[in-house]
């Protein structure tokens, strides 16, 4: 616990330096207990900086990323997009497998292994997902989740440029995977980095295209788009880490809280 805190502190240092430029949010006065509980639960001391980055992301999305994703959807038929998605998922399987193993998820590791075997051979390099109809559904794992399983705390909420909602722990996971990807390393060895860049670009397009309707819907219905995304991301992430098994901490629901206000506030935040 202490060690992980220290790691996080070290990771947070450069971010805090950046935050000094943009300014931190002001915490509520200590005597307002409920406001303090809310502040801790929202876990976003860098909010002014994060909101500035979010504004940048929205501009980049509006003028470049979203039009590209919409163009991709318009130009490429659904069949083609599914093939691309399958190939990208297959390319990711070495990392998914490694993370399954590192998390001690034997069953899921075996699933990932056989999926990659089947799809690479019978599925022609991942072109066709033959494993899902065969009863082995895909799942995602990343190094941020592995760190979480190992007990590393998430740290404060962080809005990354282009990459979007994150936190120091998941940022470390993201960077680590960029350097550790076996396929990219192999391409670099052969001097074919352009293949890795193509893959990166396609991954971005595939992700954004998949989120076109969802994000539009959230933006359409929310009063504060940033706050909605922050809440959704953090809740979804904590469920992903538990591989959807829930367990342990309870998510409070209206009308179900046995003890009053105090417990209501300490929701899924770790």
């Amino acid at each position, binding site marked *: 616990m202490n060690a992980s805190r220290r790691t996080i502190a070290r990771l947070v240092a450069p971010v805090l330096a950046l935050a000094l430029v943009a300014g931190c949010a002001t915490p509520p006065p200590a005597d307002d207990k*409920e*406001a303090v509980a*809310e502040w801790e639960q*929202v876990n976003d001391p860098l909010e002014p900086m994060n909101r500035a980055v979010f504004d940048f992301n929205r501009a980049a999305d509006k003028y470049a990323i979203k039009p590209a994703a919409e163009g991709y959807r318009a130009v490429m038929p659904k069949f083609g997009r*599914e093939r691309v998605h399958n190939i990208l998922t297959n390319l990711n399987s070495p990392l998914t497998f490694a993370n399954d193993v590192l998390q001690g998820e034997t069953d899921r590791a075996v699933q990932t292994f056989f999926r990659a075997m089947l799809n690479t051979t019978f599925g022609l390099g991942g072109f066709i*997902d033959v494993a*899902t109809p065969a009863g082995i*559904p*895909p799942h995602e794992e990343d190094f941020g989740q592995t760190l979480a399983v190992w007990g590393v705390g998430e740290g404060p909420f962080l809005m990354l440029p282009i990459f979007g909602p994150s936190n120091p722990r998941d940022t470390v996971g993201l960077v680590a995977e960029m350097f550790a990807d076996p396929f990219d390393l192999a391409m670099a060895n052969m001097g074919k980095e352009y293949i890795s860049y193509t893959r990166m670009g396609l991954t971005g397009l595939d992700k954004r295209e998949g989120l076109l*309707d969802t994000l539009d*819907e959230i933006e*359409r*219905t*929310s*009063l*504060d788009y*940033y*706050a*909605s995304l*922050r*809440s*959704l991301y953090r*809740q*979804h992430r*904590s*469920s*992903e880490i538990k591989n*959807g098994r829930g367990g342990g901490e*309870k*998510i*409070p*629901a*209206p*009308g*179900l809280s*046995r003890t009053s*206000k105090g417990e*209501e*506030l300490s*929701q*899924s935040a770790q």
Partner: protein
Amino acid sequence: MMTRRFLLAALVGSFLGLAFTPIAAAEADPKVFVSQLAGTAMETMTAKGISDAERNQRFRTQFTTDVDLPEIGKFVLGRHWRAATPEQQQDFLKAFEEIVVLTWATRFKDYGGDLRHVVTNAATDGGGIVVESKVERDRQTPINLQWKLKKGEADLRVVDLVVEGASMAITYRNEYAAVIQANGGKIDGLLGAMRTKIAEMQSAGKGATKAN
């Protein structure tokens, strides 16, 4: 027992379109309640031959009967609920109902397309009931839903919907708290933002129907 319940669910599910009056016996089963709720909502939003005004009215009546919006609203406002005047509380609940109904009408319309909603499990959890279900999509991983139900005096009512681990009630709560904070802790600021949003969503809804 398991199979009989499943058969009952399937049976009720297949007659959803015809069942205008809720069957008292079916209401008691949480799984049937959820599949009936989702089924009727999709049915209402995709039914042909009724005007949009009537469609929306039907959806609102059903949705507000099955979902305990005042209870959710109180939770969403949290500590600010107690600070609010009775008039503000009433204004908030009214605006909240409007936003939630406008939001979910569109979502059920989309779900009613080529998606299938399947109820998988029901369990009691503390003071309430949690029903798990899945929205299955073609060649994509299904979306996992959890419906939190509360047993009222007469029948079951929804108090939260958890989509892929994200609770709608908590999301609203976090979001609205941020809006109140941005308005210097004033609930009137939130109410103003909600009214603007409602007007925006209503005019967008009308625009969409005209375009179709």
